[in-house]
C-alpha cells in the first residue's frame, strides 16, 4: 500500500466513529494545548524581562536610602537618614570607574497643556541622568548642570506624555503647567518601552532642585535626594565598583564598622536576570507537567486501538486473505494511531494558541508561541502515535488469517 492509501484507509476507519475518535484524542488535545499555553506564557514573560534588561543596561546601579532587604525589616524605608547632595558629591569625587552619577527624586503631577491634561510621573533629576540612563532625545535638548543647579523651570517630556498631549506636533518651545507651575518644554525623549510592568515613557524629567522646591511635597532635609543612579564604566568590574561605592557611602554616612548599611545598592538588571531564570524554570516545570498528559493521552490511544483491532478482526482476516502482508496491516493501524495523535496535536495547538491569546488580552500578560515549540508539539504527538500505536498495530499484523476470518 502507498502512504496515500494508508491515509485514505485510516481516514475511513476514523470517520466511522467520529465521537470515539475525538474522545480518544482528548488526552493529546489537552496535553499539547497545555504545553503550548505554558510555554507561551513562560516565553512571553522571559522575553519581556529580557527586553527590560536590555533597556536598563546591566551596568547601572541604583542607591536607595535604608536597607530594602527582606531580612532587614528593621531598616525599612524612612527609618534610615535620606540620601543627600553631599552623598552624591562624595560618590562623584571618591568612587572610581563611574561614567556618571545622578540624583533623582520621584513625584507625580498633573500636566496641563491648553485644555488637555494628563497625570504622569515626574522625575526630578540631575543633568547627568541622561548619561546614566543612556537616553537619547528625538527633539530639542536636555538641560545642563548650570540650568539644573539654578532650578530652572524646564521640562523634558517622555514619548508617551508628548504623544498624549501634543499628538504629532513638536512640543519643544511650548509651555506646560505641572501642578499649576509653568515649565518650558526643551526636549522630547526617545521611546524606551515597558519595564517592571510600567511604561518608562510616561514621565517628565525636570531639574532635581526645581522638583524639590516646586513639585515634591515634603523633604526631610533641604538637599534630600530620593535615589542616586550611577553608570559603571565598561572597563571596570561592576561588583568592584559597587564595593567601592558602599565603602565611600559607609564612610560618608558614618556607619559604625559592625552596623548594617543605612542604604542599599541594587543592580536592577541582575535582579531581573534572576527573575528571568526563575520564570524559565517555572515554565519548563509546568510544560513538563503538561507533557505527562501526553503520555496519559498515548495510553488512551493504545487502549482504543486495541479495542479497534479486536472489533475489526474479521476485516483484518479478510485483508490478509486477499493479500495484505504483515507490514500492510501494521502500517494501516500505525497510520490510524499517528493520524489520531496528529489531529489531536493540531486541535491542541489551535486551542492552546487561542487560550494564550485570550490570556494575553484578558490579563495583559505577554505571550509568545515560538515556532520551535509548535514543531516540537507536532513531533511529540506523532511520536506518541507511533509509540503507543505500535503494540496494537503489531498485534493486528500477527493475527492468524484463518482464525481472524472465523472470528465472532
Amino acid at each position, binding site marked *: 500500500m502507498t502512504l496515500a492509501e494508508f491515509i485514505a484507509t485510516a481516514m475511513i476507519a476514523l470517520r466511522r466513529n467520529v465521537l470515539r475518535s475525538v474522545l480518544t484524542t482528548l488526552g493529546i488535545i489537552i496535553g499539547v494545548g497545555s504545553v503550548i499555553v505554558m510555554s507561551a506564557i513562560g516565553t512571553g514573560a522571559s522575553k519581556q524581562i529580557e527586553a527590560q534588561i536590555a533597556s536598563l543596561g546591566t551596568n547601572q546601579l541604583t542607591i536607595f536610602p535604608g536597607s530594602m532587604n527582606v531580612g532587614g525589616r528593621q531598616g525599612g524605608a524612612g527609618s534610615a537618614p535620606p540620601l543627600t547632595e553631599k552623598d552624591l558629591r562624595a560618590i562623584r569625587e571618591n568612587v572610581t570607574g563611574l561614567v556618571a552619577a545622578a540624583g533623582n527624586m520621584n513625584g507625580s503631577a498633573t500636566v496641563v497643556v491648553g485644555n488637555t491634561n494628563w497625570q504622569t510621573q515626574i522625575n526630578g533629576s540631575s543633568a547627568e541622568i541622561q548619561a546614566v540612563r543612556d537616553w537619547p532625545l528625538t527633539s530639542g535638548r536636555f538641560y545642563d548642570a548650570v540650568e539644573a543647579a539654578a532650578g530652572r523651570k524646564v521640562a523634558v517630556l517622555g514619548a508617551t506624555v508628548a504623544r498624549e498631549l501634543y499628538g504629532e506636533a513638536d512640543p519643544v518651545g511650548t509651555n506646560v503647567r505641572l501642578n499649576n507651575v509653568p515649565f518650558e518644554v526643551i526636549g522630547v525623549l526617545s521611546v524606551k518601552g515597558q519595564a517592571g510592568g510600567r511604561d518608562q515613557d510616561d514621565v517628565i524629567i525636570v531639574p532635581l532642585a526645581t522638583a524639590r522646591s516646586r513639585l515634591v511635597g515634603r523633604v526631610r532635609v533641604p538637599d534630600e535626594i530620593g535615589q542616586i543612579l550611577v553608570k559603571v564604566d565598561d572597563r571596570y568590574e561592576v561588583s568592584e565598583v559597587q564595593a567601592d561605592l558602599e565603602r565611600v557611602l559607609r564612610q560618608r554616612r558614618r556607619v559604625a564598622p559592625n552596623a548594617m548599611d543605612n542604604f542599599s545598592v541594587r543592580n536592577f538588571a541582575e535582579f531581573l536576570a534572576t527573575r528571568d531564570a526563575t520564570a524559565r524554570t517555572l515554565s519548563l516545570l509546568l510544560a513538563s507537567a503538561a507533557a505527562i498528559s501526553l503520555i496519559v493521552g498515548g495510553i488512551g490511544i493504545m487502549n482504543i486501538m486495541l479495542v479497534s483491532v479486536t472489533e475489526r478482526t474479521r476485516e483484518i482476516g479478510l485483508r490478509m486473505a*486477499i493479500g495484505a502482508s504483515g507490514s500492510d496491516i501494521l502500517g494501516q493501524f500505525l497510520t490510524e494511531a499517528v493520524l489520531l495523535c496528529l489531529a489531536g496535536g493540531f486541535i491542541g495547538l489551535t486551542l492552546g494558541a487561542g487560550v494564550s491569546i485570550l490570556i494575553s488580552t484578558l490579563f495583559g500578560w505577554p505571550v509568545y508561541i515560538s515556532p520551535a515549540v509548535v514543531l516540537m508539539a507536532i513531533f511529540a504527538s506523532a511520536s506518541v502515535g507511533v509509540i503507543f500505536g505500535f503494540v496494537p498495530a503489531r498485534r493486528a499484523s500477527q493475527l492468524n488469517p484463518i482464525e481472524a476470518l472465523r472470528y465472532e
Partner: protein
Amino acid sequence: MSQAEPQTPVPVVAARNLCKTYQLGEQQVHALRDVSFEIHRGEFVAIMGPSGSGKSTLMNMIGALDVPTSGQLAIDGTDIGSLSRDELAALRNHTIGFVFQQFNLLARTSALDNVKLPLTYSRPRVADPEAIARRCLEQVGLGARMDHVPSQLSGGQQQRVAIARALVNSPSLILADEPTGALDSATSLEILQLFESLNAQGMTIIMVTHELDVAAHARRLLRVRDGKLVEDAPVNSPPAEVAA
C-alpha cells in the same frame, strides 16, 4: 517457479500425500491424512464433506492460508510449504480469488472500493485499478451499482461484489467457501449460474459446500471424510435427489 514437465501443463492445485496434524493439548488431531489430487486449469470442482471431515483444513491450504504438516501442496507450481507469511500473502494476492459465505465486504465502503481492495496490496502495482474494478463489476452484472455501499445491496448483490473482488486480480483459481450458505435458494441459483458462466469462460473454480444440490453445479466432486479423500468423481448432471 514452475517446474513444468514438458508434456502436461502445470496443475493449478497439486496435492501430494498431504497431511495436517494439530496438537490439541495432549492429543494429536489428524485433520488430513495422505490426501493426493490435482486440479487443472478450467475445472469446476466441489469439495464436500461433513463438518470435522478436514474439508476446511483442505480449503485453507488450497487458499494458501495454511501450510501442510507433511506432504506437498503446489499452487500454480509453487510449493506453499516453503513460503513465509508474507510470501503466502503475495501468492494469495496474485493467484487466488476468495469468495466467503458471509461475503466479508468492508462496511461503509462502496462496491467499487471493495472490489479495488486486492489491487491495493498488489506488487508490482497495477496501472489503472479503477478501470479493472469497473470491468469486474460489469462482469458480475453490477455495473449500475458501483457506488452503493454493502448495506444498500441485497445479499445476492453483495455476493456478486465479493465475486467481482475475487476476479479483480485475474487469479488462477476462485476459492469459494459455502458461497450460497447465506442466500435463499433463488439467489443461490443465480450465484451458482454466475460461477458456471465464469467457468465456461475458462476460470478455475473450487467450491466448498456441504449441500449436494449446490455441488451438483460443479463438474467434479471431491469428497472428504475423516481427513481422507474418499471420492474423486465427475458430477453426473443433473443431480439426483440422493441425500439431504
